């Protein structure tokens, strides 16, 4: 399948080109160039305020860049935003849904907005995949954080997106919830070939889930490579945490 408009880069499902977002005099994202291949689980690392969420907001077409652009699933985020959104799933940090409605009603609403003609069938399949059938008729307000997260993932994958964007998905989850989420992401990637772009702080999760990583610092990409290559390159370091700190510190010294 062709994803990039540029034939030489067709293997990249996410192709970010000099993407910038400026607030006043400050760059939240500064000339970001990034490529993510189809089928990867990409971990986007960075300190608080590094620009990870701003990047995801731009790639999901929620936010207009100041300059530059990107192609997601072969479509321009600026000129073909609706086409991009048809092909992506999105799970924001601290997922919120309509509290007064049941899980099913929430999912039905998002399914219809995603253009799914038979929502019931898709919802039941997704709830089954996530082992969340028992939440079907429960109001969102009655669900725990972990349960909500699962319904949040359900809404993000209902329409079988090519790329799933997750913003700090483990935020606020207990260890059991984190493990469940990890298993789900790995299954989605393995069974459906879904590309996953994940903003995260949890380095331990990155080692268990991601195939490639990018490190963002003060709006600039300071490292991007496969996890294996990254660990090889910094073979003196004992853990990804050490690698991450070395990369970050190296950048600061520049």
């Amino acid at each position, binding site marked *: 399948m062709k994803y990039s408009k540029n034939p030489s880069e067709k293997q990249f499902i996410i192709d970010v080109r000099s993407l910038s977002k400026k607030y006043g005099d400050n760059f939240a994202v500064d000339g970001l160039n990034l490529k993510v291949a189809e089928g990867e689980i990409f971990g986007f690392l960075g300190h608080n305020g590094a620009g990870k969420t701003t990047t995801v*907001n731009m790639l*999901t*077409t*929620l*936010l207009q860049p100041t300059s530059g652009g990107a192609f997601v699933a072969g479509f321009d985020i600026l000129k073909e935003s*609706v*086409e991009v*959104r*048809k092909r*992506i*799933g*999105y799970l*924001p940090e*601290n*997922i*919120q*849904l*309509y*509290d*007064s*409605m049941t899980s099913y009603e929430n999912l039905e*609403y*998002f399914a*219809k*907005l*995603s*253009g799914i003609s038979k929502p019931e069938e898709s919802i039941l399949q997704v709830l089954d995949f996530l082992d969340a059938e028992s939440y079907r008729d429960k109001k969102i307000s009655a669900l725990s954080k972990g349960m909500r997260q699962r319904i949040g993932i359900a*809404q993000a994958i209902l329409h079988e997106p090519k790329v799933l*964007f997750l913003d700090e998905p483990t935020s606020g989850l207990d260890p059991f919830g984190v493990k469940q989420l990890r298993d789900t992401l790995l299954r989605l990637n393995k069974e459906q070939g879904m590309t996953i772009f994940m903003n995260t702080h949890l380095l331990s999760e990155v080692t268990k889930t991601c195939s490639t990583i990018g490190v963002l610092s003060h709006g600039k990409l300071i490292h991007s490579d496969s996890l294996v290559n990254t660990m090889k390159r910094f073979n003196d370091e004992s853990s990804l945490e050490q690698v991450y700190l070395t990369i970050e510190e190296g950048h600061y010294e520049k």
Partner: protein
Amino acid sequence: MKNSIIIARHEIQSMFRERTFILLLAVFVAMTLASAYIGWSSQHTINQVYTAAAEQLRQSGKVAPSSPFADYPHLALLKNMIIYVILIGGLLAISTGYAAGMRERKAGVLKLLFSRPISKEDFLLGKLLGISLVLAAVILLAAAISAISSAFLVSLNAQDVIHLFSFYGFSWVYLLGFAFLGFSFALVKDDEVVALLIPIIFWIMITFVLPELTSALYPTGSLNPTLPQTDILQNPALQTMHDTVYPFSISEHYKESAATILGMKATGTAAPVQSGILNAFKIFCWMLLGLAASFAAVYSFDKSRW
């Protein structure tokens, strides 16, 4: 358009789960139920007073003049509804628009919603359609209640029924202006309280302040809240104030047009009232103003913020 209909349907479903909306709706329905009886009762009392006075005159050998209320229109018994629409209906409309604008913000799903393949136009149309249909349902319910209760008290003919539904249709247009205003401020104002307060200030200005500077200047203004009955406004300063403020006094234009639709007419000594068509046009412009505010709000708000 398909997405707009999905959003509108969701809006209607959600609105009828809102406690504030249900509470205001209950009050509005109760007042609608009461209005026909109150109107009939006051008219009945006036007729009884006239009959007693006429009887006294006849007993004292004098000729009683014919009743000035004999040809009172049937729908005059609904004249209290004009005030209820302005007071409770206005608040209900603001509450409806505000809830529609605030729903995604409060739920924290605005980003999620706009990550789906919908445009701001879909969102705007869906919300406006949802608000309009919710208010149309409220108005239809009130119209049905008024028609049934009036039919019990007086004999309504086909023309009366047409006028009754025209009155409620006109009231719907008037209320949409408030609803759209409530929706607009809910989208653009960061502070939820301020977002609600601003349309309520508009409502207070339109409902109380402007009429105080116009029709309330007439000595009989408080006796008949729907149409001024005298033209004895002779103070030039008051006259100037009236003439300056009156074109902007939306609730008065509504009151005058609504009263005319219900068949009530100013008496021969009435102060000059603008033509019905011009008044109705102003109410339509008021609704369009709210619509324009909604468009501006939707296109200016940042969907990545909430």
